[in-house]
């Protein structure tokens, strides 16, 4: 298992190499001039100025030279400098990483709390009130865009009830509303997934064996049903964790959090190539890492899965 983990960790390099190649190719193929947003004759820059800046930013080099330079710098931990402002891309990203990771973890926990508990209750009381409530919750949750949910939550809990500040940092407490807004859709999906998985396991012979032993029903539910229902749940949470690292632009915007999602969208609209490359590389690395954790978790959940 240690060897497997190390091998998977080493795989991160070829993966990132592939990702960097794809980003480079896409950015090269994109029409228009990346500098147009920064310097332009319309802003009063002369043609010589523009040419000088192009030269400074190595935009006149052949593509493969640009790519190899980028790779060489990246390997030494330098993701380049932003076209705008000239700040270090790595520092920009690192500055936003803690907030992003905090929010992703909080969102993941909120999703698990809501989704798993609702799904388990629904399965245990199949056809009963908890089941119907969960299905309504899942349906409504999936139907509300997270940006709208964020605004609603802000309106209800911060503006009306004043439980939270609308703006300003309150430590961990300021994670509650954005995490809840992020969790709404995935928790709805997870609740249905958990319910279906639990119901499937409940039909298994070993659940009947467990009941025949005369052990408490809570043990049957947790040790025998829930543990076997975990695989699809973990798969989904893994996919979710990856997307939470990058895909929470709206929630970050509504709650004024400087996260990686917002960083990426800003840099894309400004055509700030070094920022785009750096941001996407980070997100890709995050995906690889989360996938590894999920694969290792499979082995913990199900002893039939082995790594050699």
């Amino acid at each position, binding site marked *: 298992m240690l060897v497997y983990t190390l091998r998977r960790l080493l795989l991160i390099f070829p993966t990132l190499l592939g990702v960097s190649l794809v980003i480079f190719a896409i950015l090269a193929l994109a029409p228009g001039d990346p500098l147009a947003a920064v310097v332009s004759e319309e802003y009063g820059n002369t043609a010589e100025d523009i040419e000088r800046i192009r030269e400074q930013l190595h935009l006149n080099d052949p593509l493969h030279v640009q790519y190899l330079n980028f790779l060489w710098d990246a390997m030494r931990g330098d993701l380049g400098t932003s076209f705008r402002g000239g700040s270090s891309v790595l520092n920009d990203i690192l500055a936003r990483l803690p907030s992003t990771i905090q929010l992703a973890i909080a969102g993941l926990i909120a999703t698990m709390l809501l989704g798993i508990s609702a799904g388990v209750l629904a399965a245990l009381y199949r056809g009963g009130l908890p089941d119907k409530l969960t299905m309504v919750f899942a349906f409504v949750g999936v139907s509300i865009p997270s940006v709208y949910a964020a605004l609603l939550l802000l309106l209800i809990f911060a503006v009306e009830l004043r439980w939270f500040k609308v703006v300003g940092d309150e430590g961990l407490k300021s994670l509650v509303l954005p995490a809840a807004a992020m969790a709404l859709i995935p928790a709805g999906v997870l609740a249905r997934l958990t319910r279906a998985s639990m119901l499937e396991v409940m039909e298994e*012979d070993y659940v009947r*064996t467990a009941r025949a*032993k005369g052990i408490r029903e809570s*043990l049957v539910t947790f*040790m025998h049903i829930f543990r*076997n229902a975990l695989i699809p749940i973990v798969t989904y949470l893994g996919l979710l964790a990856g997307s939470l690292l990058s895909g929470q632009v709206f929630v970050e915007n509504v709650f004024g959090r400087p996260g990686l999602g917002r960083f990426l969208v800003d840099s894309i609209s400004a055509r700030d190539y070094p920022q785009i490359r750096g941001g996407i590389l980070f997100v890709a690395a995050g995906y690889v890492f989360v996938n590894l954790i999920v694969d290792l978790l499979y082995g913990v959940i*199900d002893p039939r899965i082995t790594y050699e």
Partner: protein
Amino acid sequence: MAHLLEVRDLVTRFYTEDGAVHAVNGISYTLDEGESLGIVGESGSGKTVGVLSLMGLIPDPPGRVERGEVFFADNDLLKLSADQLRDIRGREIAMIFQDPMTSLNPVLTVGYQIAEIMRPHLNLSQEEITERTVELMELVGIPNAASRRKDFPHQFSGGQRQRIMIAMSLACNPSVLIADEPTTALDVTIQAQIIDLVKRLSEQFGMATIWITHDLGVVAGLVNRVIVMYAGFIVESASVLDLYKKTSHPYTLGLLQSLPSLHATIATDRLIPIEGAPPDLLQAPVHCPFAPRCQFAVDQCWQENPPLQRVASNHDSACWRWQDVRAATEQLA
């Protein structure tokens, strides 16, 4: 003498979208201390549902025990609360299931699964439970039990898994052991070993056993008494010898004739199958459920379902023409 277990007029139905499935239609039988009883029937005859009903293991919904009494140690099991019944399950009445491949939880160690049954029922410390787990595994013939208890079910063969199921069921020294086709899913060579093991251990610990099987040949050497079930009814009940020699129900006769014999040659003695298909349990029974497949059937069989009646001492049959069946049996022999 009071019986160890007495089932009276047990009725279990499953409510499905297509209607009520009449799985068990008023069966009554007794089990005495140390006795060994066989319940024989084809798939869907209600033999498994019957015992699951008395253990409170029928999934509800869709199943429901509609009627009946099950006396065990002066209690009607069907009237006990869930907690009281749970206390008896595993401790007093234990069960071995059909398919050892699917009856053990794949994600828990076998040691845990054996130990688990002792925790609520026996007042033992964690060390004592571990010790007894290893003892039980050795008792059923698992080598290196002390280290193997930490293995998972998929690391054992089918026969070994069934041995682990047996170890589990013996853990609390139950007074009744129910073996629900414990060898159906196993290799023929393993089947005999498992049957011997259960027989030996149940005799050693003085447990009464109920063997559920579709194979009359399996129970012949194992049990004192056999109950034959068809379509949720008990159609014949007798000692093994009487059942073979004085067969009094056409279904039993059909089962016996479809058994291969060591002495038969293929050329002369072909097996005789029971014609027709198993009954549709969605229909509420009005006539004899076996009538459509019965070579002895007369008009009366299509009008009235015959009750189980005494035909000799300790021999019951539910057939209007049991005397003709018996005569036919004796002629064949």
